């Protein structure tokens, strides 16, 4: 981050005053308010109800702790304006519009790729920067958008990292599964992941298995009987799963009901199985499920600061159950606040230009520093192999950050 000298600060202030008087004569009073704002208003759009409600609420915890932590870190005042998009693409668009009308200087959200794509359109149309917390569909940053930035892996990156970690998992556990059944949700994220797997798998020649069947299902499904029956009939060694939370719970229950015991469930990079609700609902059934996902660095200084703030706000909760959601949501707001500090303005164009110049090295999530490429995408975000052990999501790979050894194949469930 660039340090401002006193002289440049004075010069900037003078320039700002000149700009303000010019704005007063040409654009009117509201423009001055925007330019001189001392507080950044961040519109956070998340699916806090509906099928993705649990995950949206988990992300919200990252937004709730951000103002306090960022004030201490950067000395910047931010105001969070929260909106619930009800896990719905259209509502996401209208909530985004409304936040901009109500004075949001920057948008953050929206966890789901479809909902985020809708929010990205609002950002472009209204010329307000959007910092994506979580959303993997690659097309969001492939459309030449000028105001959209993403600090999250794209689906092909998640798949590439996730499959590489699957190879590492088999190596670490000395196992050689030959077949997998690929099950995935059919929403924007699920389809993007499926495309990514189809593109990346042929190049991953070190992987010993082949996909014998692909089963897609509705993200809002209430029953997975048929899907699990089909998967069981494939006699695959393990389940390669791209899921959300509710369907992951349904799937695991249905596997037990149908007495199907493959070697395990491995997600090459999707939410669901490391979420607190997965553990709460399934209890011991949640054990041994594996998710290869972008994860936080438990040893990072910023993680400790965030964890402290998290526990203060959520004394009965644990960061580990919310790490990915809280971490990326917090970092998205941090990116906006950091840009605000450097731009010293809430003007959308100045903020956008400042976001483009971001270089945050002290971060919470695994991977390279936060720097946006010309498409507005951060590259080099890391993944970890997270296995549910003793009812806690536990990093088992890569070995350098692991806190336990992976268990694969999983022990068979006994009722």
């Amino acid at each position, binding site marked *: 981050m660039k340090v401002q000298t006193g002289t440049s600060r004075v010069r900037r202030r003078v320039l700002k005053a000149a700009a303000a008087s010019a704005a007063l004569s040409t654009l009117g009073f509201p423009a001055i308010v925007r330019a001189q704002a001392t507080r950044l208003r961040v519109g956070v759009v998340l699916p806090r109800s509906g099928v993705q*409600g649990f995950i949206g609420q988990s992300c919200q915890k990252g937004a709730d702790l951000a103002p306090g932590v960022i004030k201490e870190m950067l000395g910047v005042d931010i105001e969070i304006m929260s909106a619930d998009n009800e896990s719905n693409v259209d509502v996401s668009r209208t909530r985004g519009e409304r936040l901009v009308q109500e004075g949001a200087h920057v948008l953050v959200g929206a966890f789901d790729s479809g909902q985020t794509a809708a929010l990205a359109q609002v950002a472009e149309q209204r010329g307000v920067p959007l910092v994506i917390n979580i959303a993997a569909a690659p097309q969001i940053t492939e459309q030449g958008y000028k105001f959209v930035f993403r600090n999250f892996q794209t689906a092909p990156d998640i798949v590439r990292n996730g499959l590489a970690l699957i190879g590492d998992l088999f190596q670490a556990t000395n196992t050689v599964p030959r077949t997998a059944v690929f099950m995935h949700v059919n929403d924007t994220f699920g389809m993007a992941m499926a495309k990514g797997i189809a593109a990346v798998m042929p190049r991953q020649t070190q992987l010993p298995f082949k996909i014998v069947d692909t089963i897609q*299902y*509705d993200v809002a499904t209430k029953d997975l009987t048929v899907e699990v*029956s*089909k998967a069981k009939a494939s006699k695959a060694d393990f389940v390669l799963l791209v899921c959300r939370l*509710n369907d992951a*719970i349904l799937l695991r229950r249905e596997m037990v*009901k149908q007495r199907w015991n493959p070697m395990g469930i491995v997600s090459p990079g999707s939410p669901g199985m490391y979420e607190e609700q997965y553990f709460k609902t399934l209890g011991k059934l949640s054990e041994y499920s594996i998710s290869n996902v972008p994860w936080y660095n438990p040893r990072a200084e910023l993680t400790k600061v965030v964890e402290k703030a998290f526990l203060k706000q959520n004394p009965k909760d644990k960061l580990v159950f919310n790490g990915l959601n809280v971490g990326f949501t917090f970092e998205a707001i941090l990116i906006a606040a950091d840009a605000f500090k450097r731009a010293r303005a809430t003007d959308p164009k100045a903020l956008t230009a400042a976001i483009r110049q971001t270089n945050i090295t002290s971060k919470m999530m695994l991977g390279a520093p936060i720097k946006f490429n010309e498409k507005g995408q951060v590259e080099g975000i890391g993944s970890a192999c997270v296995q549910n052990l003793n009812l806690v999501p536990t990093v088992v790979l890569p070995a350098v950050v692991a806190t336990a050894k992976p268990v694969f194949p999983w022990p068979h469930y006994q009722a």
Partner: protein
Amino acid sequence: MPIELVVNVVIAGVLTGLVYGLMALGLSVIFGVVRVVNFAHGEMMTIAMYATVVLFASLQLDPFLAVVPVGAAFFVFGYALQAGLINPFITRPEHSQFMLLLAVAIVMVNGLLMVFGPDARNVQVDYQLESYAIGPILFDKARVYASATAVAASAALFAFFKFTRTGKAIRACADNYLGAKVVGLNVRRYYALTFGLGSACVAVAGCMMILLVDVSPVLGPAYTLLAFVIVIVGGLGSMAGALLGGVLIGVSEALAGLFIQPSAKSMFSFALLILVLLLRPQGLLGRKP
């Protein structure tokens, strides 16, 4: 494709379809007698599911035992709803009834959101993850119990309408409104009784459905729509048709999921609906107007 896979999927479809059928039966009974389309049907089932969750969480009451208090409470609720709110609308244009029940549905969904929040809830009973096995054929215990209860509740309702004086009086009101009034039947009271019975029916279905799916406030509209599809396929106003429609929808969804694409399975219920509307508009077991 292995035959046991097809058999397993069909069995699951039949068992789920029977519970669907019981849910739609309530709608069919209410329409058959009162001639009011209950647009709050799915929402009422959602409330019954929440009631079962609350009874289970507070008293550890198994959903099968919860059928009695929840069913009774819904009978009273349905009776009061018809007597107090819907009866004045009986002679008004259909769109007034439609708007009234739609408003009731919206109030119910938002009331549930206010009380329980948006999160999905369920009950965790011992037998929920167990199944009976006959060779490679599996019968999900919860589904077996739920469908058996649905069949028993439907049989009791059939018997009530066929063999009791009150049941016959209700049928008389349904067959000839004016004639029933002429012979001195208190038609509005029987209407309220019917709405109570239909509500009790959907309550029992809700108690069973919570064993199969998690409940959230937004579940209601989807089940209202499903109930409509079932009764239109089976025949609006036909009790046997509602059960048949439920089973057909359950099995067609299951088979479509198996042979075509699981994500497209609900599409087939609507395809079946279009087919029935084209070839037999009164429904499979419905009477021609």
